[in-house]
């Protein structure tokens, strides 16, 4: 019996000890930058940004921003809170999340309002794809975490005591020790992406592997069954957008909605996928809810060359200086820097003219760029 006693006590002690060590190790290394652990050069100064849904939720809970930029990764990469501060004198947080649909954006907006009852302004970038019945957020999204400003049990466990967290901590230690960068989109403290790293990545892809992200990324859109192949405008998601608008109006929060200035290739992709009519229908429906700033189409910004990344990272994501033009137009600041054909406020009264205008622009651009049109078509077929 004595041997069993020793074994039993030893096993429990070893279990408790191992669990404690794992938790302390993950806490100290803090691979996802959640616990404000001291950053030590050579040990844990390099971080991972693979879980933006959790990281941004924690940031919103901590800094309680009074101005929020919401949307998908297009917002995350293209809108610069630093520039916003320079032109408006207000601190803001970029809560754009990769692959977030409008339901998710509504939840993060409500979370922002819960964190800061003084939330004053939101800018929401709208995506046609985010209103698709078939689109769904990634596995890292958790609605439960947005019910509380404190970190929920599941997040504590997943970041401190899982195989994945320990592997990620080890990657951080390895990368910090060897002064390497880890893959993934690097996030700045204001929630936006680090532009330089993104540009370096897309440039090296083009140079080293011959992969042009404009077409390569568009292919992933056209071949994903839940982006354009299956598309049905979701009434539930339209309701979510309505809720954002109604909540803002009832709470005195100023809201500005805009359609992103993705590259012409993106809009041509919608045409190639046979979704142009639904795209216009989507605009008609959202504009019934609220006026929208529309930067989509085939204007002087969105039709720039696809052979370099001076203005875009790919056909979907624009760079921050383009985002600055978006802000300039919407806020009527430095408007002389904004081309005349870039950004129109669409309302129920002018929606048909605006749709006609874009159709005309499209026709002209297609006539001028038959090779690109054919290349996009081939991506949709293959």
């Amino acid at each position, binding site marked *: 019996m004595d041997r069993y006693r020793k074994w039993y006590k030893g*096993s429990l002690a070893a*279990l408790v000890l191992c*669990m404690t060590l794992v938790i302390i190790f993950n806490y100290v290394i803090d691979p996802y930058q959640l616990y404000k652990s001291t950053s030590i050069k050579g040990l844990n100064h390099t971080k991972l940004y693979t879980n933006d849904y959790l990281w941004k939720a924690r940031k919103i809970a901590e800094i309680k921003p009074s101005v929020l930029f919401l949307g998908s990764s297009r917002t995350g990469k293209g809108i610069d809170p630093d520039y916003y501060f320079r032109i408006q004198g207000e601190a803001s947080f970029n809560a754009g999340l990769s692959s977030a649909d409008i339901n998710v954006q509504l939840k993060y907006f409500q979370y922002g309002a819960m964190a800061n009852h003084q939330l004053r302004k939101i800018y929401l970038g709208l995506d046609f794809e985010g209103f698709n019945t078939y689109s769904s957020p990634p596995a890292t999204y958790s609605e439960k975490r947005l019910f509380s400003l404190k970190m929920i049990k599941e997040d504590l*466990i997943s970041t401190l*005591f899982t195989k*994945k967290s320990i592997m990620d901590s080890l990657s951080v230690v390895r990368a910090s020790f060897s002064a390497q960068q880890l893959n993934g989109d690097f996030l700045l403290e204001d929630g936006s992406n680090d532009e330089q790293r993104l540009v370096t990545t897309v440039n090296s892809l083009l140079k080293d592997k011959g992969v042009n992200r404009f077409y390569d990324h568009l292919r992933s859109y056209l071949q994903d069954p839940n982006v354009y192949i299956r598309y049905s405008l979701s009434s539930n998601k339209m309701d979510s957008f309505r809720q954002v608008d109604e909540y803002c109006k009832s709470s005195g929060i100023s809201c500005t909605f805009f359609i992103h200035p993705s590259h012409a290739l993106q809009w041509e992709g919608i045409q190639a996928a046979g979704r142009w009519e639904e795209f216009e229908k989507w605009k008609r429906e959202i504009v019934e809810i609220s006026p929208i700033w529309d930067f989509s189409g085939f204007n002087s910004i969105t039709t720039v060359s696809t052979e370099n990344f001076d203005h875009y990272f790919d056909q979907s994501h624009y760079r921050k200086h383009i985002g600055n033009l978006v802000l300039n137009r919407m806020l009527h600041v430095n408007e002389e820097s904004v081309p005349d054909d870039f950004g129109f406020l669409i309302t129920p009264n002018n929606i048909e003219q605006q749709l006609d205008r874009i159709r005309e622009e499209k026709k002209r651009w297609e006539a001028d760029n038959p090779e690109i049109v054919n290349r996009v078509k081939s991506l949709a077929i293959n």
Partner: protein
Amino acid sequence: MLFNSFEFILLFLPLVLIGYYLLNRSANASISKIWLVFCSLFFYSWWNISYLPLLLISIIYNYCTGILLGNSKSGRMRFILAMGGVVFNIALLGYYKYWGFIVFNTNTLFNTEYPLLHIALPLAISFFTFQQIAYLVDCYRGDVKESSFLNYMLFITFFPQLIAGPIVHHKEMMPQFDRHENRLFNFENQAKGVFIFSIGLFKKVILADTFAIWSTQGFNQVNELSMIEGWVTALSFVFQLYFDFSGYMDMAMGAALFFNIKLPLNFNSPYKALDIQEAWNRWHMTLGRFLYQYVYIPMNKLMLKRVFTPLGMKKQVMLRTNLSLILLFLISGIWHGAGWTFITFGLLHGIATVCHRIWKKAGLKLPRIPAWFLTFGFIVIAFTFFRAASITDALKVLSSMFGLNGIVLPVKFEGLFAHIQIQNIIVFDNFTMINMSGAIKYLIIGFILVLCCRNSVQLMEKFKPNVLYLIFSLFLLLYSLMNLTKVSEFLYFNF
């Protein structure tokens, strides 16, 4: 509450244990039993408290019937009471589990429009119903007499076996609670409990939940499966079910051992079986025992008395046995779920068991390896019906397994077959299922574990309190805990 959750492992179980052994210091044994009953009801209610009243009503009704049976001297009255109790239990199960199925099929068959009530299945109802039917029959036979309501409550609700079995007898459980030495903290049982609980947790979290990825994906895309994908789908489910259910049983055994209670064996390496009868003798053994004792034997006797004797077929023992067996397996299939797929599953096993009996009676015997292939192959086919959403889906999976949907091999193998004329037979393309190489690796591991290794109970029998066993248990426990990232129910919670 799930065994495979942090709440259970790190909070519930330690607190219940501490409370139990502290209360056992009191001279009054009832106090610790009250504690266990209270904790077991809490454990049951954690998932959904709305079914607690149903559980309590069922317990109270069966307890009262048991008391009346014990006090009644009249044979006729005892028969009426026992039958009344059995009918009550079956009616309860029938309403919650089969009503929707009956109404749906009635509407389809007779073109009626009776409303479907969409009644949710109360957790554990199949298990506590069968356990209480067995109890009533035992009372009727005079094998059991329980006068204490507390003991009866504990017998039904004891949390390690409440949700998904094993289906236990009163006489094998309650004397264990009353034994004085079992009220004392026993380090040997604690150590063995830790050991087998760790194995069970690993089986569930690492093995079953990983196989679930491929079985779920495959059964969700039955129209797109090629031959290899069909086999991966079906085999993944066969392993998922085994590791899930036997993992649950290991954890149940481990949790019960912490209270010095030994639960009966429920699995004994069923996939090593060389014939279908042996497979059933090794699979869900307490269900098999229940069905044999409380369904097969009475049904056989009833058939003899009411059918075969009046028809002058008293000596047709083989026919009667075979009919009883087919009915028995049909009942087993229906017990697992309300659906034609489960009925087909039961019927297939019934027919296979009858075939095996005829084969055995004829004195025929297959060598070990072909016998295993035949038995295991049949198990895979029958479980395909068990898992599929419909018979059509099951047939689609089976047709893909037999190559009727075409054979697809990865493009990288094209070079290997370049000199053979197989263009019309094999297509070189990508698989539609994710991580197929991972699936193949896991299937190989699965086969090695179920065929070449000792099962968990055999391992526990060999348990020695040394460093090797400590490292082994600690690794399984820690690795499983570190992969507990999502809520994953046990498959048998649905039955």
